[in-house]
């Protein structure tokens, strides 16, 4: 019984069990992104799955930051276009649409990146 409880506790404490493994942008196209806007050293960024093993930082073009400005430190949902494939936790996309999001308090992991439609890479 104790063994089962410890295994369960280990599994529950392991973030990799719950967090989706991020492999990067493998398809170009439009993505729906749920995350939070942050002010970083090199400008405003969108952070997805913040403070988890699958944290992803999305940089946006300089002029696009003006769209992001009203959402700094706020939960947001955006439609982003990725024109280049990329690996790793730092990627770059262009904001097509953005709005505030009501975060789900019982599911702090309700953020993520979802491919909506594929397009040719540039």
């Amino acid at each position: 019984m104790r063994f089962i409880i410890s295994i369960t506790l280990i599994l529950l404490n392991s973030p990799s069990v719950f967090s989706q493994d991020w492999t990067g942008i493998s398809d170009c196209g439009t993505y729906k992104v749920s995350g939070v806007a942050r002010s970083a050293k090199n400008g405003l960024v969108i952070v997805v799955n913040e403070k988890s093993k699958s944290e992803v930082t999305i940089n946006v073009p300089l002029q696009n930051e003006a769209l992001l400005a009203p959402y700094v430190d706020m939960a947001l949902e955006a439609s982003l276009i990725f024109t280049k494939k990329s690996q790793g936790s730092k990627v770059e996309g262009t904001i097509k649409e953005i709005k505030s999001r009501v975060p789900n308090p019982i599911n702090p992991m309700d953020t993520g990146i979802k491919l909506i439609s594929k397009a040719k890479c540039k």
Partner: protein
Amino acid sequence: MIIKKRFLAGLLCLLFSTHSWSSDFLMVIGAGGEEAKEDTIFDGAIKNIGDYVKRTPGVKVDVAMNGGHSKTVALINDSFPTAASKSDFLASDYQRLIQSYKLKLENNEMVAGDQLMIYVDSHGAEKEKNFKSHRIATSAGAATNLNTLQGASLVDLDQLEVLKKLAKDKGVKMAIIDASCHSGNSLALADDNTCVISGTGPNHYGYGTFSQNFSAAMKKGKSLEDIFLEARAMDNTPGLPMISTQSGQAVNSLIYDKITPYLYHFDDTNDKLMPYIQENNSAYQQCMADGNFNSLIATINSIEVINSVSKKVLWWTTKTKDIDLTNLKELLGKYKNSLDLVTTKMREIGSERLKKEETFDVSASVGNFATAWKQNYSWKDLITSDFNKLILTMQERINAETNNSNRTTLEAMKSLYTKAQTKKEELLRTEPDLATIPAKEVEVKKLIESNYFTNSAIATEERKLYSALYKNSQKTQSPTQPNPCQSFKL
């Protein structure tokens, strides 16, 4: 001898009955506008329609659906092995099928007594000014907004009018089953030869279950009206399936507008409730809403009375309700109180002011580089943003930047944030209560007791009301009036 004569007469009737010689044509289109994944939300209905075709030999079917969702593609191939044509649902496929059926009608490949059913199951947009019905998503692109279908490539169902007119001229019975969101708008395509059935009302989202129930109920010999009533009674999703029969139109005009807000729920992504409240929160509109609610309750009461049975036991009379809609009235009353509270609070805080937009001319030049653009910020954006912090960060970046092109953009953005901050200060000076609105709005949203389950409970009870009103209306309809939904038999 008499039996022999009757047998021969029956046989002759069977041989010469129109339906036994007529052909059924079925055009299935849609499954567009879905995001990139293996399957689509339309798969359940696709399988059911396929099962109907498989068990009904002789139905000539053309399928233009989907495009790019591997499991759905496999399902379509498996479900429609005998289809005359199978393709993606692109705008060109839609035009090709319309053209193909137009030619069949013109060239008498489809003749009087034949039947053409067009089954549309896709994402559907709200009605737009230039269209009689509405537009639906093709398989090019994916919809990110379920009201406008932004992101998806669309085609309009008004184009089916050409087939509708030709079918009527040729005596070919026609039906349009539109299971998409906002499909109540397609009822505008109905006439005395074309039956139109929609999966929901003109201002409501549609839910897959109606289409699944409808397609599962499709059996040879059944009329479309009977299938509709059967499928509608089974559905508990907060849409309002509609039919173009006289009775259907009568019930729609009696209850649709009045029940509309009580089937809306608050949704973070695709919300119809908050925009409805914001558009209808004046004192006059509140008064109208009260009137509509009272009228709806009066309609419910009268249908209960009509369907009550009086029994005389000794010296007193008891009334038994055949149709008991007490639960519906309670649910509507409770929900109305919740909406009224939210509407009043929204009016008090004046949250609609936050939607106002300000446009800023942004420009800067550094060396040979120059940039200029216009940027819009809503009052809410201005009130909730910390532009002073953004200006400071921007100055640090400008100081560190050596590339003049980048510096130009950074300077332009610094000037944008400076102008926005000035406007923010001006707003807070002239309308100091604006600053408190965003927090109050969050509190108000918490007051909404509505969610999908509340609406489903109301929808479940609404089915009983609709069935009772429909049956009651049928009694008053003239039997000589054409009813294409009853005469279209599978």
